[in-house]
């Protein structure tokens, strides 16, 4: 296996007594778009700040491009682009000035790309940052990140302030860098976004990684929701294995099924003459929910 772009081994971070991260293990391969999801306060931002050498790990190790994130921060950052979760910008600089500053601080320079992105993200670079909304500040940071030519893009909830149109632009940008063979580490709690973009996902909760895998691997844990209309009423549905949440709809029935049991359930349904069948693939939302249910018992 090629050297990982980003790797953490038993990464632990305490804020005084409070354990914010506990034995976090991550590994992002070249060309991978890696999703990092978790609820508020799970430790996403903390992880990312450790990865950028802004916070110092309490225990464990973290490396990017095979180098130590704390000691070699400056070297590493020459090839990393970053968008923080809370984008705070100098109130007396204009958006254009900030973008230039950011790009120059990485010694990269790409005027045409910058212009193109400013247009795509639809920001007015002549306005002072204090007049920007949260979303607009985020767009400024995104333009700066994507106009840099980096090998690894670290993005902390980059779309939390964007409208759907801009989210789409953002996704295009991610796919573009992915196609160029770059790696992306994307934290989010917008699950559809992670689902659409990411090859691999880690779920973090209360500072611990509770699940890691490819989208395909994680789906086996999940349920598919099915809505079916049959000629005859379905019998003994509740007894079939892996069935949950049965509800009557207008002409039929709606239920959820553990994805691994779907075959047997379909076989069961055909006995009653299927008129209409709709299967919705599991979203990460549901994955998340089922995971919490499992934890709660």
């Amino acid at each position, binding site marked *: 296996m090629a050297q990982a772009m980003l790797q953490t081994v038993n990464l632990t971070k305490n804020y005084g007594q409070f354990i914010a991260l506990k034995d976090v293990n991550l590994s992002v391969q070249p060309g991978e778009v890696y999703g990092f999801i978790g609820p508020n306060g799970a430790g996403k931002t903390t992880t990312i*700040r450790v990865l*950028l*050498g*802004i*916070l*110092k790990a309490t225990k464990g190790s973290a490396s990017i491009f095979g180098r130590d994130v704390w000691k070699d*921060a*400056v*070297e590493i*950052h*020459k090839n*990393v682009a*970053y968008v*923080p979760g*809370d984008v*705070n*910008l*100098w109130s007396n*600089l*204009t958006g*254009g*000035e*900030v973008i*230039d*500053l*950011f790009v*120059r*601080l*990485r*010694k990269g320079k790409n005027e045409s790309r910058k212009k193109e992105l400013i247009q795509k993200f639809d920001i*007015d*670079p*002549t*306005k*002072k940052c204090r*007049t920007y909304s949260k979303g607009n500040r985020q767009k400024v*940071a995104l333009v700066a990140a994507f106009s840099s030519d980096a090998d690894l893009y670290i993005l902390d909830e980059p779309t939390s302030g964007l409208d759907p149109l801009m989210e789409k632009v953002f996704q295009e940008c991610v796919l573009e860098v992915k196609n160029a063979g770059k790696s992306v580490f994307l934290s989010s709690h917008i699950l559809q976004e992670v689902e659409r973009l990411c090859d691999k996902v880690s779920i973090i909760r209360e500072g611990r990684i509770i699940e890691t895998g490819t989208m395909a691997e994680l789906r086996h844990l999940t349920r598919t929701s099915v809505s079916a209309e049959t000629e005859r009423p379905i019998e003994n549905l509740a007894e079939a294995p892996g069935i949950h949440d049965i509800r009557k709809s207008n002409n039929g029935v709606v239920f959820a099924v553990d994805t691994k049991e779907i075959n047997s359930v379909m076989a069961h349904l055909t006995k009653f003459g299927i008129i209409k069948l709709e299967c919705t693939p599991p979203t990460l939302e549901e994955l998340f929910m089922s995971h919490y249910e499992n934890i709660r018992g």
Partner: protein
Amino acid sequence: MFANNLTLCKLIFRRDRLRLPVWFAVIASLIIGFGAALPNMFDTPEGRETILIMMENPAMIAMMGPIYLSAGGAFSLGAMYSLFMLVWSAIGMAFMNIFLVVRHTRQDEELGRIEVVRSLPTGRLANLSATLTAAVIVNAAFALLLGLGLGLVGAEDMTFSGAMLFGAAMGAVGLVFAAVTAIFCQISANPRTASAFSFLFLGAVYMLRAAGDMRGNEALACLSPFGLISRTKTYIDNEWWPIFVLLGASVVFSAAAFRLCAARDMGEGLIAARPGRRDAKPYLKSPGGLAWRMLKTSFIVWVILMPVLSMSYGSIMGDIDQFIQSADFLIQFTGGDPLRMIGFLIVLMSICSTIPVLMFMTKARAQESRGYAEHVLARAASRHSQLRGYFLFALLASVLMPFLNCFGFWAASLAVMDTPFAFSEIFNACMVYSPAMMFMLGMTVLLIGYFPKRTNLAYIYLGYAFFSLYLGGLMDLPEWLAKLSPFGHVPVLPLPVGAEIETGQIVALILMPVLGAAMTVLGFIGHKNRDMVFSQ
């Protein structure tokens, strides 16, 4: 058009329920406090005569206003009070009103609050009229309370009717500025330009008054609200006509503001906002360049302000002997020695010019806590480079500011003294504080490195230095209290004849920059090895 005016007005008072009392406390403590203190400070007519002599020059008249004397030509306490306080208290009132009106009109509009309000059944002019109504109430209350307060504390020749007139003058000036600010809020497209125009107006009418009073041109001075209130001759003739002129003017200006408000669109100004830079200037490409960009404005302001301040303090060197004799506490403080007085002025200015040194350095910490430094550090910039720019500017200030003091004092001594000081004398007296400033700077870096949330302790320490020296001289406190701050170890120059610098002081002068450098190094190391701290 005016519907719901009252509800909105109540909302303004609710939102400012803390701010307004604080403004009142500050302004009232100055006005009433000085009114109470003045009779004790200058209790003899002779003492007041000396002050009068000092005030009777064009520079002072330009600063304070024209001098009016009581019948019989005496410089009464009341005359002295109104000369010192009328114009400057009015400036305080102007500040308060500018902030009040901008906050509740233009700023709310920018934050989108007014949009919400306007979608309710409120009139188009409701917000402006509510704000101006609030301004009328606030200024009337201030006028009444300040007048009453001053009337209760004044000495015998500070009459109650004079005090009420003083209060009324404050209220009337306040209203004029509220109305003028309301006009600028309609013209400009955002709160910053509205404030900028309003303060520019304040500066302009102050200058107008200064020019008019200096040349004895009544008409010119009366074009300015500040000139008009001097014409009330408070405590002397108690003229009320300027108050009515000011009230009339605020009605006219308010009407104009309403006209303009009705004519413009929500969120727009009559003149469009000037767009900022599309691209960054070439120097904005490194942490150091960014530091300069952050400090530029305040750097320039301090470079202009320091020599002006030291020059105006230094201007008393001309009549320094009389000045000391004018008040008992000054005699006690200086032991009657003018050189000690001058030495004290230089200490004062040196402590004052340490403020920019600390400010430039603590700016680095502010960048961190506001989350700006994160952007820089996440790019190819080291921890050191993030601090370095601010440190170098602060270091520059620790040499440049004393030099500017020196320049100011020297220029003043040339202008007002019969036998001015030699440049080298003043140069030494001012520059000798540079090592102490370097020590303070080192300490600030140390705090940033190890106690980032306690960086403001540096200012508290500076405040301690000031009080230990000031009160120490005034109250015969033990000497070691002053020695706890670096400024207590600096020899006060120019030396009286026959005195010499102690060896201990020379050692201190060498040691302070060395210790400062050591703390700086430690601070940089601490900063490199710690977490970035985002909270205050």
